[in-house]
């Protein structure tokens, strides 16, 4: 799994490539929670290159989501592949997470959000 982090319009974009699973979850959750701890609580996870996610991957998303929202931010997901979307839908994540077709739309969605950046 590869992770790259960038900023766009006061939003942190975490681009993930590869598989999010029990073998990689710790690396990703550390990267995401480090961003939140540093005050960068508006997060977009770019999933365009995520090939697979398992239940361990879902737990990463949930813990990051809760931490970001507790600090006034949010985690939003962009550019999800069909097989990954199927897992998110089956496990109910699409009902609690905001999902977008692309990164620009996800970043733009934060424009109406007040509070911390």
């Amino acid at each position, binding site marked *: 799994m590869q992770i790259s982090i960038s900023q766009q319009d006061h939003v942190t974009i975490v681009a993930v490539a590869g598989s999010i699973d029990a073998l990689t979850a710790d690396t990703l959750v550390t990267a995401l929670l480090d961003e939140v701890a540093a005050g960068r609580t508006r997060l977009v996870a770019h999933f365009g290159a995520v090939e697979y996610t398992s*239940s361990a991957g879902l737990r990463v998303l949930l813990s990051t989501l809760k931490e970001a929202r507790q600090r006034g931010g949010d985690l939003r997901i962009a550019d999800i592949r069909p097989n990954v979307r199927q897992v998110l839908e*089956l*496990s109910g*994540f699409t009902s609690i997470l905001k999902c977008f077709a692309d990164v620009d739309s996800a970043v733009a969605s934060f424009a109406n959000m007040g509070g911390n950046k």
Partner: protein
Amino acid sequence: MSRAGNGIALVIGSGGVKCAAAIGLQRCLARESINIDLVVGCSGGSIYAAAIALGKNAEEAAALSTALWTRDVTAQPDRAALMRMLFPKLLGFTERFGLKKDHVVWERLMTAFGELTFADCKIPLFITATDFRTGEQVTISEGRIADAVRASIAIPFAFAPWEVNGRLCIDGFLSDPLPVGVAIREGAQVIIAMGFESPYQERVTSGGRFAFQLSSIMTNNLLKASFAFHGLAHHSEVIAVIPQFSQRIRLFDTGKIPLLIDEGDAAMGEQLPYLRRLLAAVPA
């Protein structure tokens, strides 16, 4: 992550004849020499869970499926039951209600499993049903396998509830269509969960189809809610195998069993790269 305890569990959810996809999953795992340590089955999935637990290979399970699961299983209406439904006070309605005669399905189950019990299984087997009186999930792990399967496939309105170990049971899908929780409770580490969404009606043109549509809506939402909870609650890994069939599959499309097996094999194959990496990283 350690593989102490019950290692790899396979959970096969409800789905009528679609559950034959589990034979393909079994074939895929056998090709990779990946052994299952315990198996859980619900409703239609209970037939294949039992076959796997008894040590039947994919060919034997396919033959069992073709012989057991034919349209005449539900072909004979129980007109007396229908009359009791229409005139309950006059004729005496009871909770052992089903609109189809169940002697054919019972004969088929006895042909398939006879007097075999859970004690005859090569690996631990758990079959889930639902307590008709309380709605609780019932996990059956002792007694005759045929009784457990019959209880687990007691499709509401079609087959009458079935008594097992003193509890009147109805179809397992009513409490959890994909009972991953049983595998978690039994100490499984890696859980392979094969589940099936219930199909929605193309057209609702009768009371029966209306009821099926309501059932699908409730079942699919229960499937998602339950799977979400178990996926987040499990300390280790739940690998979902949800076949996306290339054709519409109806409840008794037994002619499509070869297709179902191939698609189950392919769906498991998609998960293999990760499963291989996971098992390689985890000492047995």
